[in-house]
Structure formats: C-alpha cells, structure tokens
C-alpha cells in the first residue's frame, strides 16, 4: 500500500513537473524545431551531464554573451536570452527534464 502510494505520488509529481516544463520552457520553445540543437551545443562543449546542467543553470541565471554557446550570428540576430525568473529549485528541475528529453547518450544504440 505504501509502495503504491509512493509510486502514485511520484507519478503525480512527474506530471506536475512535466506540466511546469511545458509552461516554463515549451511555451516559448515549443514550436522551436531546433530546441534540441542547444543540447548538442552544450554536449559538444561540456561533455558530462553534471557539467552540462551546471553550465545551463549558470547561463540561465545570468545570461551573458561570453557564456552563450550559440554561434555568433545567432547572438547577433537574437541577442542573449532574458534572465530566468524561476527559483533555483524549479530551474534545476526544468534543466533535468530538458536533459532527460534531449540528451544524446540516451539516443545511442
């Protein structure tokens, strides 16, 4: 029973997190077909999951031109992103979901 309740809680938490991800990230990037390219860029530069997540968090909290991994023409065209107004915990949760959805290692067969 306890196990069932735990699994049920986790499921609802996941649904809630997923809905937060849709609200906080996909609302803007949803129709961006190149959303996964950002993951490629981060992977190419930072390699491990820990380093990628750490770099993403640092950039989203304090976006600068130097820290951006986008190519120069993108920076010129779109500028840098606005600073995230999400609290640290939520932002980390969103980054985790983004990594789980788009990381390259999980696609390897």
């Amino acid at each position, binding site marked *: 029973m306890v196990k069932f309740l735990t699994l049920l809680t986790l499921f609802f938490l996941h649904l809630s997190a997923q809905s937060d991800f849709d609200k906080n990230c996909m609302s803007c990037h949803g129709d961006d077909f190149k959303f996964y390219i950002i993951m490629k860029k981060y992977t190419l530069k930072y390699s*491990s*999951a820990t380093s990628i997540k750490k770099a993403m968090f640092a950039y989203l909290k304090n976006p600068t031109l130097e820290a951006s991994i986008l190519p120069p023409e993108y920076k010129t065209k779109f500028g840098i992103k606005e600073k995230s107004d999400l609290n640290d915990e939520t932002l980390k949760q969103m980054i985790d979901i983004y990594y789980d959805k788009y990381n390259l290692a999980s696609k390897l*067969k």
Partner: protein
Amino acid sequence: MYSGEKKTIFYVLVLYLSSTVLLITTLFSGYYLYEKERLWQEERELLSRYASELEVALSKLHESNEDTLVYPRNTAFRSAIYDSDKKLIFSTIESLIDIQGADFFTKNKNTYLITPLSPHYLGAAFLVIQTESKPLGILRDILYIALFIIAVVIITSYFLVNIILRPLRENIKMLDNFIKDTTHELNTPITAILANIETIDADGCDPKTLKKLKRIDIASKSISNLYQDLAYLLLNHQTSTQNQELNLSEIARERVNYFLDMAQIKRLRFALEIQEGVRFFADKNKIERLLDNILSNAIKYAKRDTTIQLFLDEHSLIIEDEGKGMSKEELERVFVRYSRFDKSQGGFGIGYNIVKSIVDEYGISIAINSQIDIGTKVELRW
C-alpha cells in the same frame, strides 16, 4: 690426456662458452627488445588511426538529427566513449576500462589506446580503442638460433682447445720420454755402485775412508730411491703386479734399516712399535715404494736430533716425525704430482703422488695430519 688437461679444456670451454653466451644473450635480447618496441609502435600507430576514424564517425553522428543514433562499429577494433567525468557513455568493449588520461597499454592479450577527445562529440571526452594484441612470435626462432650458435661454439671451441694444447702435449710427451730414457740409463750404474759398496770389506778401511764410503752409500741410496720412484711412475703400466702374502713387520724393519745411515746424518732416532707377523696381500715392490716414500719424507723434513715414530699393527701403520710440517694449503696439494713445497730439499715432488696411487690400489685409507714447526703424522688404515 695428461693430468690437468681435462681441467684446462673444461676451464677454456667454460670461459669461452660463458663469454659467447653472454654476447649472444646481449645481442638477442637487444634484437628482441627492438622488435618488441617496433611492434609496440606499429600497434600504437594502428590504434591511433582507428581512433581518428572513430572521431570522424562520431562527429558525423553528432550532427545527425535522427531520433536513434547508431554507434559506429568496426570489425577491426572495439571501442568505447567516456564523458569528462570518466563515466561510460557507450561501449562495444566487454569490460570496463579505468580511465586515467591518455594511455597505451596491453591487458589480457588486448591492446588499448585511450585518447582525449575535444570537441566532445556525443559528449565523449575520452575514446578507448581495443584490439587483440599481436604476438611477437620471434622468441622461439631466437632461441633456436641461439642454441644452434652455442652448439657450433661448443664444437669449434673443443677443436680449438685441442689445437692449442697440441704443442704442450708434444712437449710433455718429449719430457716423459726423456725421463724414461734417463731412468733406464741410471739403473745399471746405481746397481753397480750399491753392489760394490756392499762388497767392500769395512774392516780393512781406515776410519776416514769408511766415513767417505758411508757418504757414497747414502748418496747412492738417495739416487736409487729416486730411480725407483721414477721407474714406478713411468714404467708402472709396463710391469706386471705380483701380489703375494707379505710380512709387513719384516718389510717395515728392513726399510727402516735401509734409511738408518741417512737418518744418522741428522742424528735422527727411530722409535719402532711394530707388531710381529703383520700380514698384507700386495706387491712387494709397491709396498716398499709406499714405505720408502713416507720414511724418506719424514727423514728429509725432520728437525735434527728428533725422533721418528713408526707404529704398525694388524690394521694400521703410523709414521710420525717432528719436522717442519705443512700448511693447510700445502696439505690440500700434497698428492698432486710435481708439488714441491720446499725447493731447498731435493726431489721431484712425486713421493706422495706414488703413495696415493698405491693406497688407492689396495683400498688403504690415508690421513695426513700436519702442523707447521711441530711435525707430520701419516696414518694408513686397512
């Protein structure tokens, strides 16, 4: 083959062989290490080439927009990729590799190359390439060649030693023949001198002439003794042994009497403790040689005015002098032919060599105890 020739051949062979083996070992080890290093470099270059191929394949895969990315596989090698935290991303290698940075090593018959990768295609910070190690396969050939060379060296060195020793052998043979001829020539005059001295009427001589005759008698006996020894050594194999039941007690007394005059010159006394009727089955001439040599040595090296003791019973003969004695080193070489420790005394250094050959022939054990400046004790037991 003369005495010591075997030893010379052995030493030369050992010296020649050991230096050759050392040289062969050095050369072949050098060659083996060189070949090993060459193979090592070849494998390293091959694995580096595979790593470059994999890097290109990974870069292409990184740019792919497919939902599933098929990891590049190659029949020639197996590979794995690790992230910057040294965590495995993907692998076709069965075992996990401990990443310590760039490395090239062999483990369980496999060769590994670990190379860092940047940019990190698919997140790979390290590429690991694995192939089966190539066996060097020259060790057996080297061993066969080395054994063949050593065999050739053994054969050639044996012939070489024989060629080197040939002049030495000829010289020794010439010397042996010379001594043999001289010995033959000595026999008649010595016998004549001794026979004539014995027939001289001592009563008819004045004391001065008598003294001179005694000296001639002693000198003749010394030469006769030397002749007997040389004859024994050189003609031993040509004379037949006539073993018979001997009265050893009688012979011992007879030989002491024979040397009495010689002993008197040094004012030596004989203390005899001879059991009567001791029998021994042997050749008389050989037993006389045995006793004469021990007694003449005792007389030769005894200090003036001392006593030579002779003890004889059923199973032992002991002759002890109070002489200059021998050192430990001299004792070790006492039975070696031509070993002379005191050049001031006459002789060829063959006395104890003869003694040893006779005691060995009759199964008699010999023990010589000697102390410098105290004396020498020769014990024969049977």
